[in-house]
């Protein structure tokens, strides 16, 4: 009985030791794997940092290059915009850049919401921002860093900045209707026909019944129905002082401050 128990105990101990040995190997293996991954990641971050330092000017000045850099970061799960503190901020000041851009965009959205029903095309926002930057530059009054760096702002930057504001609430979104990208600051949807009408009007910022009939090959009734819908949604304004009634869309074009 005693022997049996001794064997049993020794057996248990052996078993326990073996399990511990396996655990140990496994954990040290995991640890090694982890450390190796960590090293790889560190190396990668270092390289990315070197890259960012080296191409800082290019990232700042070339919107296309900046977009590619972003795609690179995102593909490895690093978001230079989210990391507010740390080397991204330090090296690129990129957090500030998008923050300021987001502020500008929301300023424009709020200022024009009254006339455009809360829908503004990305191109129109870009036009207004470019104009403002130029105007401030000539006045030499602003000390804002966007202006100091003389960044050229791309549509891609605008969309990124809007994604930043989305974090603060769902009130701003990027929507695409009829091949045109818009920033929406008031909820709502555009139907297919409405999108088509806006797409035709994109170039001039306005359209007419006749233009729509000839461009879209729709019936007069269908055109009128679409236009009335846009008027009701407060997205269109009529102008009766031309040769025919014109429908203007402040979402696509609105005059600028003198």
């Amino acid at each position, binding site marked *: 009985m005693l022997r049996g128990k001794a064997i049993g105990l020794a057996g248990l101990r052996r078993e326990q030791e073996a399990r511990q040995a396996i655990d140990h190997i496994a954990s040290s293996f995991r640890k090694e794997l982890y450390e190796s991954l960590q090293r790889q990641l560190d190396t990668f971050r270092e390289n990315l940092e070197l890259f960012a330092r080296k191409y800082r000017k290019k990232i700042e000045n070339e919107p296309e290059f900046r977009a590619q850099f972003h795609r690179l970061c995102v593909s490895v799960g690093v978001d230079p915009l989210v990391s507010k503190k740390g080397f991204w901020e330090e090296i690129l000041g990129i957090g500030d850049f998008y923050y300021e851009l987001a502020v500008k965009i929301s300023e424009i959205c709020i200022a024009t919401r*009254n*006339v455009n029903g809360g829908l503004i095309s990305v191109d129109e926002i870009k036009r207004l921002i470019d104009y403002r930057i130029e105007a401030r530059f000539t006045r030499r009054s602003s000390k804002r860093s966007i202006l100091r760096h003389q960044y050229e702002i791309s549509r891609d930057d605008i969309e990124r900045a809007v994604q930043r504001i989305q974090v603060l609430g769902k009130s701003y979104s990027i929507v695409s209707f009829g091949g045109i990208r818009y920033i929406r600051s008031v909820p709502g949807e555009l139907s297919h026909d409405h999108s088509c009408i806006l797409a035709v009007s994109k170039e001039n910022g*306005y359209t007419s019944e006749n233009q729509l009939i000839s461009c879209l090959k729709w019936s007069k009734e269908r055109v009128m129905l679409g236009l009335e819908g846009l*008027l*009701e949604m*407060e997205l269109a*304004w*009529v*102008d*009766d*002082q*031309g040769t025919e009634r*014109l429908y*203007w869309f*402040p979402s696509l074009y*609105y*005059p*600028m*401050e*003198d």
Partner: protein
Amino acid sequence: MFRYPPFYSYPPSFTLQPVKATREKQLKLWCDLVLSYCKHYKIFKLSVTECATWSLFVNTSIDRKLSVDAIGKVLSRLVSMGYGEWLNKEANVCLVYWRRPNEWAQLIYDWVERSGRRKSILTLYEIRFSEDTVELEFHEMDIELLLKSLQVLESQGKCVIFEGKTSDDLGVKFL
């Protein structure tokens, strides 16, 4: 130089909008513009037919103008918001209150106190054209608006208005 808002360069701004919600925004924008324009040029009174030819309502650079009918609606809105008052039944001449009569009353009374004119009698003409008021906003103020403002003061017991042969001869004693 008066700086027009972007709205003034937008062609459809000059056509009264058929959809109510849009028209409301449009009238509000016009009211804001009328008030800042009148304040800038110190205009106290508007006649619908007369001001229809002013650059305020005519933008030659985009070849658009606001119709007399639409101007009437803008001014009616101004009146209904308390920023103006019709002077006749036909509703085509109105006072524009870029400052309301009670605000004018306060400005005038402040000046009276500051310049030690309490207890003295002044004519309305003196208040409007005195050299002492050249620097002040109510210099050359419209006489009907001045009278309304003084009536506010009278109702507060701060002055007494005396009869005169003409409006400018009216006298006022500040208490």
